[in-house]
């Protein structure tokens, strides 16, 4: 587990996930029971009090279980507290029921001409045990399951993985280095330096320290082309050429923007993962703001780093389409399962037909009734689910549009350019590896995690080899053709 201010969804304990799934299952059962009860009341099997029961079931089991279950497993403090309270109430109520009526307490539920015996005592015992376990688990693992208030938890899995790796490419630990350039300072020493360091000098052009961001005058450059930082004392190399930053003439340019080639200081550059290419030597690529926003046009082609706004919708809508997909695959799995289920009543019917012929009328009637129930219940459930889809799909559509609007508002409200200089200060203050703010405007800020990079390099190598082989094959064929035509003309 990382330090307290950096949870990601990957830190979630396995038990918490199980609790989420269990609660969702309770919720689904509650929902089904509500629908069943409502249906039974509608058909007159229950008195009007059935409506109240179904309302209680819906409001007391289905909604809270589905709602809490949905949130409790992604490290939300309020959801964990809500779950503990809910579990306590559930344990209390089911315990009371057991105390009053005992374990062998049964309910007789009327269903058409039949009745079903429901072992309510067992159900109550089951609920009491699971909810007690859930409550104890949450209380015992409180530290791990309920992040302190104000903690930021990254819940997107792919981004969480990136955060675990450190988003902004940087060789520096998120702490100030001592003057020797290797060991890190204590938080106290660090604070002292960060308090005194200045980012401007009165003595002409300055060089910005890559460790503490302090500005040291260029007059202090030593004969061996190094300069000790005025504040933190590390020895800085001097960038290759004495050119000021294009935007700040008071700062020596640190390096060039890799895209447009202009010289910039640390305040004007951001850093990204390097291109996937064997020709590229460094572990990073630097971009100025203009190039970061994709507005530089190199004169050899028309498009370079064009903003992939096209992907906005797919990204913003992705989460919702995923839910829709899950729902539709659930529906198709349901239909698939039904195909097998229907075989049983059909076979039953067949056997009734065979043994029939005026025999036991009563038994055949019961069988037909069972068959109808077996067929009718899944069909009814299926219809309910399709009705659900009719409601769910517009809601998903609507939610997707809201997400798109929010992303668009973020885009027009400002750039997400994060300079190396800013990232360094933030990482020292937060004691975390610098993280890139990512907007949907530029989802490619860091797409090349190491695995992907390796795979791409491998892919390129294979492609080169294939190209080479094809070239050789063609060469051979041309030679053979030449030879063949040579012999033909010779023969003619």
């Amino acid at each position: 587990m990382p330090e307290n201010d950096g949870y990601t969804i990957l830190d979630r304990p396995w038990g918490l996930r199980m609790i989420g799934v269990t609660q969702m299952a309770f919720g689904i059962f509650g929902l089904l029971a509500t629908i069943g009860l409502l249906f039974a009341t509608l058909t007159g099997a229950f008195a009007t009090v059935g409506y109240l029961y179904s309302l209680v079931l819906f409001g007391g089991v289905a909604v809270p279980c589905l709602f809490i279950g949905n949130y409790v497993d992604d490290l939300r403090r309020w959801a964990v507290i809500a779950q503990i309270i809910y579990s306590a109430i559930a344990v209390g109520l089911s315990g009371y029921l057991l105390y009053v009526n005992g374990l062998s307490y049964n309910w007789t539920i009327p269903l058409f001409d039949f009745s079903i015996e429901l072992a309510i005592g067992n159900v109550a015992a089951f609920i009491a045990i699971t909810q007690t376990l859930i409550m104890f688990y949450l209380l015992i693992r409180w530290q791990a399951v309920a992040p302190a208030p104000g903690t930021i938890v990254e819940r997107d899995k792919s981004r969480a993985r990136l955060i675990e790796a450190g988003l902004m490419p940087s060789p520096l630990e998120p702490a100030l280095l001592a003057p020797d350039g290797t060991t890190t300072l204590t938080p106290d020493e660090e604070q002292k330096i960060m308090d005194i360091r200045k980012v401007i000098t009165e003595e002409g052009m300055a060089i910005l320290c890559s460790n503490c961001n302090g500005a040291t005058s260029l007059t202090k450059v030593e004969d061996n082309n190094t300069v000790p930082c005025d504040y933190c004392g590390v020895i800085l190399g001097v960038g290759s050429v004495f050119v000021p930053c294009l935007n700040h003439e008071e700062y020596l340019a640190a390096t060039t923007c890799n895209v447009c080639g202009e010289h910039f200081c640390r305040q004007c550059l951001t850093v990204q993962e390097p291109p996937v290419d064997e020709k590229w030597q460094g572990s990073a690529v630097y971009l100025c703001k203009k190039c970061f926003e994709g507005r530089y046009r190199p004169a050899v082609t028309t498009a370079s780093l064009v903003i992939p706004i096209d992907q906005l919708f797919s990204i913003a809508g992705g989460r919702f389409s995923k839910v829709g997909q899950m729902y539709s695959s659930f529906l198709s799995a349901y239909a698939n399962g039904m195909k097998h289920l229907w075989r049983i009543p059909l076979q039953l019917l067949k056997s009734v037909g065979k043994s029939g012929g005026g025999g036991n009328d009563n038994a055949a009637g019961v069988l037909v009734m069972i068959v109808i129930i077996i067929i009718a219940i899944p069909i009814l459930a299926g219809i309910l689910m399709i009705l659900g889809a009719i409601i769910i799909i517009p809601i998903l559509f609507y939610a997707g549009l809201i997400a798109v609007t929010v992303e668009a508002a973020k885009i027009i409200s400002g750039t997400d350019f994060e300079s190396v200089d800013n990232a360094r200060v933030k990482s020292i203050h937060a004691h975390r590896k610098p993280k890139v703010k990512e907007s949907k405007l530029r989802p490619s800020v860091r797409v090349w995690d190491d695995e992907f990079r390796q795979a791409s390099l491998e892919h390129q190598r294979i492609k080169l080899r294939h190209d080479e082989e094809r070239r050789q094959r063609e060469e051979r064929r041309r030679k053979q053709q030449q030879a063949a035509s040579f012999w033909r003309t010779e023969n003619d």
Partner: protein
Amino acid sequence: MTETVQERILCPVCGGPIKIDQQDKVNRCEYCASPVLGPSQSRNCVTHPDILAKEVCHVCGDLVCEDCIQKRVGEYGGKLLTIVNCDKPTCIAESDWAKPLNEEYQKLANMDWADRIDNLILRITGLGAIIMMVFELIFFIGVMFYQFLTPWSIPDISIGALGPLIMIPVAILLLNILGNLMSAILLQSALQVYVHERQMGAGITLLVILIIEVAHLLFRGLFFGLLTFPNPIFLPLMLGAFLFGTILVFVGSLMAIYIGNKKRVQLKETQEKLHLSIKP
């Protein structure tokens, strides 16, 4: 202290370690590969010792002045990056895979002048499109609300055997989803005005969609009989918001077309001046 610790030299860009291999040539950061001056390296051009160097050759690591460099655009894994080489034949040969940068073209085709106005256009069209999107979302909910939860209802519609009971919800749903989709396309185009190449096209698209969207809204208004609406605030408020969004998008799209066309003319003139028949 009897022994002096060998202090590590840090890269001025990333803070990575720098190993001094060469005394009079640039050494590169072990992490980010940025060039750093060697301990006894001069800061001037290697061929013009009295001129301060401006660039470093990516092949040999020599410092060179502006007269001695060639800028190229090289493709690295699909991204176009600028590299600089000096005019030594070996360095030119080594850089041959990258296309030379047409500096004259670069200068004439520079569009920095449009940075501020482009930012403004993005904000105007973006804000307008967001307002219209929010309008559509609220309009959807509003019509649903008044149809199903208040006595007010849109006029009866029936097609063939399908009576008002089915046709009214279907009509509301379909027409409003269409409106929502249209505003989503509008939003999509409104954000494209920030890209030089697409600015003019996005501006024209915006105008066209805006006209369709307004027409679609008027049609819906008449079709739903919104003039008989019970709430006296809802309708004027919605119309006001819609009008505001429409004006923003309209103004923004005109600006985008104007600026986009200016860029187009600039590129065309550049190509004529440099006698380029095709886009470089």
